[in-house]
């Protein structure tokens, strides 16, 4: 019996459908997260990052009050 015979009998086709649903769910999760309230300030700070070549906007050792 070859590997492809074993794989054929495993009914893998359903997995593609399940994974589509998983991907859909994760994507909706990201949408939900991004548009939840209360993080405007963080996003604003991140958005300013390209504008300053000299100073970090978010240095790694600064305490965060979030």
């Amino acid at each position, binding site marked *: 019996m070859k*590997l*492809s*015979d074993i*794989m*054929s009998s495993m009914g*893998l*086709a359903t*997995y*593609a*459908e399940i*994974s*589509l649903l998983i*991907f*859909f769910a*994760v*994507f909706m*999760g*990201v*949408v*939900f*997260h*991004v*548009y*939840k309230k209360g993080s405007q300030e*963080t*996003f*604003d*700070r*991140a*958005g*300013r*990052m*390209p*504008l300053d*070549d*000299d*100073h*970090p*906007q*978010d*240095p*790694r*050792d*600064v*305490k*965060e009050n*979030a």
Partner: protein
Amino acid sequence: MLSGAPMTSAVEKFRYDDDIVRKFMVMTLVWGVVGTLAGLYVALILVMPSLSFGLPFLTFGRLRPLHTNAAIFAFAGNAVFAAVYYSSQRLLKARMFNDMLSRLHFWGWQLIIVAAAVTLPLGITSGKEYAELEWPIDIAIAVVWVIFAVNFFGTLAKRRERHIYVAVWFYIATIITVAILHIVNSLAIPATLTRSYSIYAGVQDAFVQWWYGHNAVAFFLTTPFLGLMYYFMPKAANRPVFSYRLSILHFWSLVFIYIWAGPHHLHYTALPEWASTLGMLFSVMLWMPSWGGMINGLMTLRGAWNKVAEEPVLKFFVVGVTFYGMSTFEGPMLSVKSVNALSHYTDWTIAHVHSGALGWNGMMTFGLAYWLAPKLFQTELWNKKLANLHFWLGTLGILLYIVPIYAAGVTQGLMWRAFDETGRLAYPDFVETLVRLIPMYWVRVAGGTLFVVGAVLALVNIIMTWKARPAKYEDPEHEAPALGEYTVAEPKPTGSILAYIARADFHRAWERKVLKFSVLVGLSVIVASLFEMIPTFLIRSNVPTISSVTPYTPLELAGRDIYLGEGCYNCHSQMVRPIRAETERYGEYSKPGEFVYDHPYQWGSRRIGPDLHRVGGKYPHLWHVRHMEDPRSTTPQSLMPTYAWLLKEDTDFAGIQKRVDVMAMLGVPYGDAVNKAEGMAREQAKQIAAEIQTQGGPAGLESKKIVALVAYLQRLGTDIKKQPQDSSATRQAQKSESPVMPPPGAALGAVK
């Protein structure tokens, strides 16, 4: 806002490495001229085949891959690297990890491009569209890519900015995904230094190839350019991106959806109808984030539109981003089955690709070059008026290119499917549908010329700016606190799981953890790809075997090598779709089981000439000989280049054995032929040469390449007409489909 923040660790000093950016930027413009010139030349030889001068290395089939490779991997590739090296250092507040790796990356990549420019005109190709380079160059690409990855991730590891800006996410996705795509698609077994055979065959090879092709557009031509947009547009407009939220959504939707989006990857596979429909839904969903991205880019210019009028850089960006919107609207539309039935194999695809490549990649790259030049060479741009002129030439050039080519695509598509009132094809002669396009092809030449002139102006402008550079570049020192431990507590799952998800600190935590973030991106791409591929690969019923389909004879295999090397697939498909207009024109539609020995597959993506899958037995041998010697002698209006050298050059009989061996290694059941390939090939060649002679053709052709090619062409698509032989030659004869019964979901047109 940060200068006042408490600094707990020592301040480090560092300098940015702009020398590497200068190198990549200059080469971007050099390859831009080369790539577009090659494009102009292939556009010209389509309307004036005599411009090939009968020279093998100047034919459309060999030069079109050179044009696409130069445009994608040399021009766009170098632009991406320039942008990544410039912006990543500044976004991460760190010099590149290792200067030596940066240089190795630069010189290695240029060497690969030169190797491509030499081998492709010589006919050294693996015969897979957009992945033509042969195995030694493929290995070099993988090595250079790893060098780039190590350098990039090393820089991320020593960064001095905690949050990773969204542009860098796009770069991470690019680096990981391109590596996966390139390696999986290039898997091949070498027969010689210049010839290898894809480990995949037929339907599976087509599947892998377009999984690669579709996602190469996503992760080589889209994500890095979006990263570029999210960094350089705010820079040029001097204001933050319109919505950072939207940019996050834009990123994840591309990473999660793009791989699933092309319904052309889902149609005709083992997926049931509803999953295919969900795939279509994803594809439609992709419009939203793509357009969100376009709006995000354009809205970044809010309150700065007056600058657009005076600043050529912003003009280039605005047009580039607009074309991004146009192409990402058109792409999903083209993957809708009913649209695809018309557009596939026509110039519509070519117009779509060029609105993306010239409009989006080209304009963004030139905008980038004009913005970077004064910074890199630390002087004013040599001539702003010239840059403005370039902008108008480029924009006009793109429009002059794509509008007639859209028209050409729709015209030819409609002519192919037109029936007269008696129910017969209105244009049964293929060449009728081609000559109708020639005026439009001439307009394309004009549009292309404008675009090339623009690219030359850009190169001149940058060289003159470079000439005005200071004697010594300023190399300012920057300061930032050293790496510190995270002081933010890990988000703990408190309360209900829903509350945790709703708070979603986890995303902000990932954003700071490069490794986790990268693994996540890689995982999402790999998982999606595997779920997409495994069913097609491993479920036997997807590719029903046909008992009468047998391997190519050794001589036919040698002929197939010539077909590959000359790049015939650039103009001829080998895939008759199950559409009445096609079966009327070409014959029985193609079955998946007919391609099981095709390493690699040769379905093609564009019909500048007719489909060849059922050409076997259609004409006498002599017709093919005359046609190759001078296509105009058999088809007066043909645009095909002459292949007269095939009647003069000898077939490499001694090398055939090695090729058959490799095929056998790949599982092609050659049986006895494994040991006597050369003798079999010579015998068949003698027989065909004799037949050519009796048909009134020249004598003494048996050792020539033309005979091998004729052997292959005459075999094409004839197997299903044979009576099934005994089951020793086939596997699972009982399970095989009947050649006349339509298989459930025949994997035709599964490529776009």
